[in-house]
């Protein structure tokens, strides 16, 4: 808590002293009274005790929002003392909204002043406790008391999700041949998909005897293949800048697109929700993207860790940020037989997603 006279107090006090000097020279009694009144204003203003120590602030927010979304919130100032709090300026430094100021009417002892308002979530991120600065110079603007209070609240702001329809989700080399695909589709999974003619190589246990008897030709059961290669979204070398924001948005968009395409998604990237999110849901993808933060980890380390975790059947989408030194990571992935898609953000005028083998 700090207390400091305002510049206005200095000016008024100087005027008061000047009047005293004039009164002394002019022997003008009423001028002494006038100057005493002016100085009385200053002294009473300076001696005013604002009792900001008894004030507490709460901020109520929804748990999640999206960049650009209007968020309804409620801010309250509670007066824990028995005396009245003066009129206040409430500067909320909650960075999700870029900070904003409120004014509070005087709050009676034990009372609470509240306001409900809507602010736009300006940027992606996970926003936790932030400072609220209470200040007042009541009643005359001559002595300012300021107190900074840390207010607990959390808001996860998801990045914008852009349309990435048609994005070429990578497949591992083992699943790209028709033969292998056909083999996989005939029994690896549990879900019954249909019946087809027997092909050489089909196992006998796959034969659908009822259809074979009815048609007189060998027919085999066909199952859905659940083992479509998971997509690993890797964001490494993340920078907290405009490019980083676009990368977070693109990574979340691609991950959601992959989920829509029934591909399991694993997310790798340093953030508020950990390095790795395994088999992420849509919400987890968005939270992960919201929480992305800069780190010193290298892209190849992330890729190596993903290999250790999910094996060769991973398909990688690598988001290049920072200095663009993804080559070691790509080489590592390719060496291990993984499909790799590289997304490299370009200038604002160009398409933000670019693919490379």
């Amino acid at each position, binding site marked *: 808590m700090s207390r400091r006279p305002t510049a206005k107090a200095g000016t008024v006090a100087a005027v008061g002293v000047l009047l005293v000097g004039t009164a002394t020279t002019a022997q003008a009694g009423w001028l002494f009274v006038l100057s005493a009144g002016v100085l*009385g204003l200053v002294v009473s203003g300076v001696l005013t005790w604002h009792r900001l120590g008894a004030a507490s602030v*709460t901020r109520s927010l929804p748990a999640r929002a999206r960049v650009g979304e209007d968020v309804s919130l409620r801010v309250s100032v509670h007066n824990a003392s028995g005396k009245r709090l003066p009129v206040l300026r409430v500067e909320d430094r909650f960075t999700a909204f870029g900070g904003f100021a409120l004014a509070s*009417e005087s709050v009676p002892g034990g009372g609470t002043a509240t306001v409900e308002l809507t602010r736009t979530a300006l940027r992606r991120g996970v926003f936790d406790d932030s400072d609220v600065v209470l200040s007042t110079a009541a009643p005359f603007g001559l002595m300012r008391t300021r107190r900074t209070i840390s207010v607990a609240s959390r808001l996860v702001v998801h990045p914008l999700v852009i349309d990435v329809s048609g994005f070429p989700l990578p497949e591992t080399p083992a699943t790209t041949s028709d033969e292998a695909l056909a083999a996989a589709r005939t029994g690896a999974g549990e879900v019954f998909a249909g019946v087809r003619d027997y092909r050489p190589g089909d196992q006998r246990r796959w034969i659908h005897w009822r259809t074979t008897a009815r048609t007189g030709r060998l027919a085999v059961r066909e199952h859905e293949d659940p083992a479509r290669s998971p997509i690993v979204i890797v964001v490494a070398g993340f920078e907290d800048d405009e490019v980083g924001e676009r990368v977070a948005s693109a990574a979340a968009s691609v991950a959601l697109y992959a989920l829509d395409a029934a591909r399991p998604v694993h997310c790798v990237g340093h953030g508020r929700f950990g390095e790795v999110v395994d088999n992420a849901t849509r919400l987890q993808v968005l939270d992960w993207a919201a929480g992305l933060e800069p780190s010193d980890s290298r892209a190849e380390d992330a890729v190596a860790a993903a290999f250790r975790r999910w094996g060769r059947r991973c398909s990688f989408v690598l988001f290049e940020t920072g200095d663009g030194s993804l080559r070691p990571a790509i080489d590592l992935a390719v060496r291990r037989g993984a499909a790799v898609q590289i997304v490299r953000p370009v200038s604002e005028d160009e398409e933000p997603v670019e693919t490379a083998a």
Partner: protein
Amino acid sequence: MKDVLARGSARRLPEDSIALRAAVLGAVLTGLAALTSVGAVSLPAALLFTVLLLAGYSFSYVYRHPTSWGWVVKIVLTLAAIVAVTQFFGALRQLQTVDEARFPLANLFLAVQVLHGFDLPARKDLNFSLGSSLALMAIAATLSQDMAFAFYLVVYFAFVMAALTLSHRSELGGSAAAWMTADGKTDPGRARFPWDDIGRAVLPVTLCGALIFMLMPQSVASQYFALPFSLGEGIGADAAGGIMNPGGGSGTRSSGEAYHGFDDRMDLNVRGDLGDQLVMRVRSSAPAMWKGIVFGEYDGRYWKAADPDAAVPAGDAPPYQYPVGLRSLGPRVRISQTYYVEAEQPNVIFAAGQPDTIWYEGGVSIDALGGVRTPSTLTPGTVYSVVSTRGSAPAEELRELPQEPPPDHIERYLELPDSVPDRVGELARSITRGESTDVDKVLAIEDYLRRNYEYSLDSPVPPAGRDAVDHFLFDADVGFCEQFASATAVMLRSLRIPARVVAGYAVGRRNALSGYYEVRSSDAHAWVEVWFPNYGWYEFDPTFAIPKADGGLERSIPLVGAISALWRSVRDAGPLGQAVAAAITVALAAFAARAGWRASRRRRGRGRAPLPPGAGPVTAAFRRFEDALATAGRPRAPGETAREAVARAARAHGPMSRTALQVFEVERYGPLPPRDEDVATAVEELDRLSRAVRETP
């Protein structure tokens, strides 16, 4: 040019508060009214200024947002300001005294206020206007002499406090997204007038202002003297002729309207009270006796002033200088005075001590004894100034003066009529036996008279043919200033010490607010001047006392003066009064000690550790609950958990749901804040428990 002006306007946010504008306008109009009341602005001009100010403030509000033609307004206002300043300097050339500059200065400030009134888009402009209004009040304060100014002062400060409060609210809310209110309504603050905020500030401001005024040194720091009025076409008309005493009666009873001593002769047989009419206000750098007439010759009943036909003009035009031949020497203190005559006075110049320089619009003559006379009586409204000097040598220095016979022109102040019996001289010698110096003899006689004679305006009148002084000293033992002064002068003359009686007014009551000495009819007085070799005339007052010119802290700091006066009144109140005063003092001390003890207790309570960072309403409510326990004498023990403390209180004061404690723990220790509805319930429950703890013995 246009662009520059437009950019300048754009940087300031337009002020939307009509209340703030009205408060500032109120302060300016109060300053205008105060100036009008003291005659610095004529009534028609004041009405014109009022209309223009109203128009200007309305214009400023309507066009507070930047306009494409705003630069035209600024150019017009600038040109008008140049005209106003030119007129001001033109008026300055016609002035005779520095003091007269206050009137054109007041008009210049008003013109600036009016012009600025058309260009008040932002709060900063309004603050400037508010500051300028103080200049109007300051000019009015230097001109005001009576208590009517107090009304303007109260109204002015009411507007200033409202304007400052509204300005601060505007500053707070200017860039705020919304106003928070206790009832949860958004945005009403902009329209709400802060009556309660201003009301709560009235008492502290009044107390602080009064205390500062009481502690403020009000001595005269500068010896610079500026004539506070215009002499006009001063004419040195001949002032010869006798003293005219308006209201003075004849016979042995006072008329009650004017002091009979303001005449060519002072009749020691006249008795009677004087009225309490205000006769003049004196602005003086020091308190003094305002001497008007000098009496030199005593004939057993009358003291006679100088021959009116022998008065000599002091000069052709003001300022008039006191004749060098009549001037006293030695260490002197300077006293600047200006007299504002409220009731008709004799045709004499009242002045402190020796009037060295006189500014009076008419002619002035000096009589043979050094009295200063004017051609006609001083009518109400007459203003004149005098710079005087008064002998300031202390008694020790006067004792060192050589004991030598007075020069020839002082011999007349040793003469005594045959009517004075020898026993008067014998009494004087017996009183001063053992005193070797003149000053000690004077002091001894003063002391003797004060101790042995009573003061009464209705003392016995001497029988016909009886010497007035002898009758007072040996028969009546009762008298008033004339008897005391006459007895002193006659006894001193019998000791061959030159002395004379002078008449005028005592210092009067100093109005602490206006700073003027208010002199009334009843302050008419007679006292003594004693001549000392080389140093000349010194004043002595055997009836009361001559006020000190410097006065020390008692005069310059009102609080010290008030305490001294209180102390004197207690000292003079006798045993019963002193006992009452002692009882009141003890009671006040006990009250102050109790208040201090309570404040100390409150401070100890406030000295607790602050609420932890991020503490919410439930934590604050729990702190109140702890305070309630402490107040009730059952404080929370150091090792007692919150749950145990609540359970202990709940056992004694009724049940309490577990939810409140859970919410407290969530708010205090949980990663996310509790739900709002839970917070409200928990605060309510904890406060209910706190009330129960406090209210139950």
